[in-house]
């Protein structure tokens, strides 16, 4: 009998929600790490009860926590992230030069390696990628990314200079992608040692040069594991699709009420079915007309349809952050969405209708979903 476990990272701790395959009756555990911000929770694909959480407070900084029992108990790891030299400066929000500093871990990804071990990747703010091959005990920066020749063009978005998306190619352990706001989307074909910017076809609406080598505000990128050469991107300036591993992008925003939004996810069983949550624009992060709608495309971005059954029709001013949407692997596919207002919505018919799973959580920062087989 399959089960679903939803890992919800929030401003005030982590929550774990579980349900059987019917997804009608949810058990909620939490808050974990009370009083702390949890930026992301992630699971090992090889051992689903091995979980990782990025926990942060303004006082004590960032601590990675690990559980070996599905989240019942946790151990803090001595996760000292240190940049590989040289450590220089970047241009801050106000144009001033700012020294690079490890602040928070935004994203954790666990990938199996051919030798049977696992590799954990951590995306941090200020933007850098770290790897651990010893279950989180030690971390090494994959510094080819931060030392990329375009790094002088990287600038923070409003959320900071954060590496928020890590996408390993399931068909090729040496290929992976990362997204950084606001640096752009980068791909590596050698396991993360060297990187190529993948920006052809994207645009930077607000800059004098709309097509610089880097500096793009990529909000989120998604792929279907069975078709990893096709990528979908929600950018600050539109929704894009690439059919060639990010080499070129074309705009698929037409049919959406706005080019702005944060998350983008792909249906678990239909590689051409994509979901986004448009927000009105980059200054007003709320749904157009105060009406929360998920938009679905079933033809890879050619056409879009609004999905609103069960979602608020008016006076809704929440946002859905970039990591706060995920899918399960059941059939029909479940879609999960957490809001800045603390609502966790679920759709158990691939988006046709939605219901509130939890209505009063803290601000939801990130969601991951595990589909578990007993």
């Amino acid at each position, binding site marked *: 009998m399959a089960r679903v476990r939803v890992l919800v990272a929030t401003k005030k701790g982590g929550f774990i929600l579980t349900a059987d395959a019917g997804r009608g009756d949810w058990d909620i555990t939490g808050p974990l790490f009370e009083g702390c911000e949890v930026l992301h929770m992630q699971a090992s694909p090889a051992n689903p009860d091995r979980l990782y959480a990025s926990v942060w407070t303004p*006082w004590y*900084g960032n601590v990675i926590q690990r559980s070996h029992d599905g989240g019942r108990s946790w151990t803090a*790891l*001595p996760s000292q992230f240190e940049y590989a030299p040289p450590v220089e400066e970047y241009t801050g929000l106000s144009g001033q030069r700012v020294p690079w500093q490890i602040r928070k871990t935004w994203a954790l990804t666990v990938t199996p390696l051919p030798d049977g071990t696992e590799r954990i990747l951590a995306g941090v703010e200020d933007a850098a990628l770290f790897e651990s091959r010893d279950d989180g005990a030690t971390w090494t920066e994959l510094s080819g990314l931060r030392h990329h020749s375009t790094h002088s063009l990287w600038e923070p978005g409003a959320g900071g200079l954060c590496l928020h998306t890590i996408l390993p190619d399931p068909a090729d352990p040496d290929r992976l992608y990362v997204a950084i706001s606001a640096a752009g989307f980068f791909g590596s074909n050698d396991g993360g040692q060297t990187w190529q910017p993948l920006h052809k076809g994207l645009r930077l609406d607000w800059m004098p040069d709309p097509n610089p080598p880097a500096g793009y505000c990529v909000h989120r990128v998604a792929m279907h594991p069975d078709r990893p050469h096709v990528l979908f991107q929600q950018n600050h300036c539109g929704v894009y699709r690439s059919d060639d591993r990010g080499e070129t992008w074309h705009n698929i925003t037409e049919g959406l009420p706005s080019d702005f939004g944060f998350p983008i996810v792909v249906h678990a069983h239909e590689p051409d079915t994509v979901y986004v949550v448009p927000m009105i624009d980059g200054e007003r992060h709320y749904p157009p007309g105060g009406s929360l709608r998920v938009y679905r495309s079933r033809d890879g971005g050619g056409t879009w349809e609004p999905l609103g059954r069960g979602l608020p029709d008016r006076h809704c001013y929440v946002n859905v952050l970039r990591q706060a949407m995920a899918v399960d692997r059941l059939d029909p596919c479940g879609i999960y969405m957490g809001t800045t207002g603390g609502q966790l919505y679920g759709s158990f018919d691939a988006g046709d209708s939605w219901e509130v799973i939890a209505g009063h959580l803290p601000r939801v920062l990130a969601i991951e979903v595990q589909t578990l087989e007993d």
Partner: protein
Amino acid sequence: MAQVVVVLPWHLVRLTRASGREVCVEVEIPAGSRPTLGDVIDALAERDPVLATALREPVPGERPLDGRRFRLRPYIRAFAGSVDLTPAGLTAHLPSKCLDGREPVRFVGAIAGGTE
């Protein structure tokens, strides 16, 4: 060696393997000098590296390894009894009353309300 009693903030006890708010650590007394707040954190690191990571951070822009330098995290304050060690940071010398157990070294999370 001095036995220094350290009082940890509540949050840090929950985040780490500390069994309670009071932790006793052994700190070496340098010849002709007194141990520093940084020495106390080094001793805490031997007990649980997470404690040290949570109390100090690398100075931004500094290169690590041999030239590594840390600083107290911005929202952490440290007291020896009622004496505020925070302004001098990790180089602050412990008063003798902390070296013979009369007063603890106390780490406090700065009061910083107002956010969500």
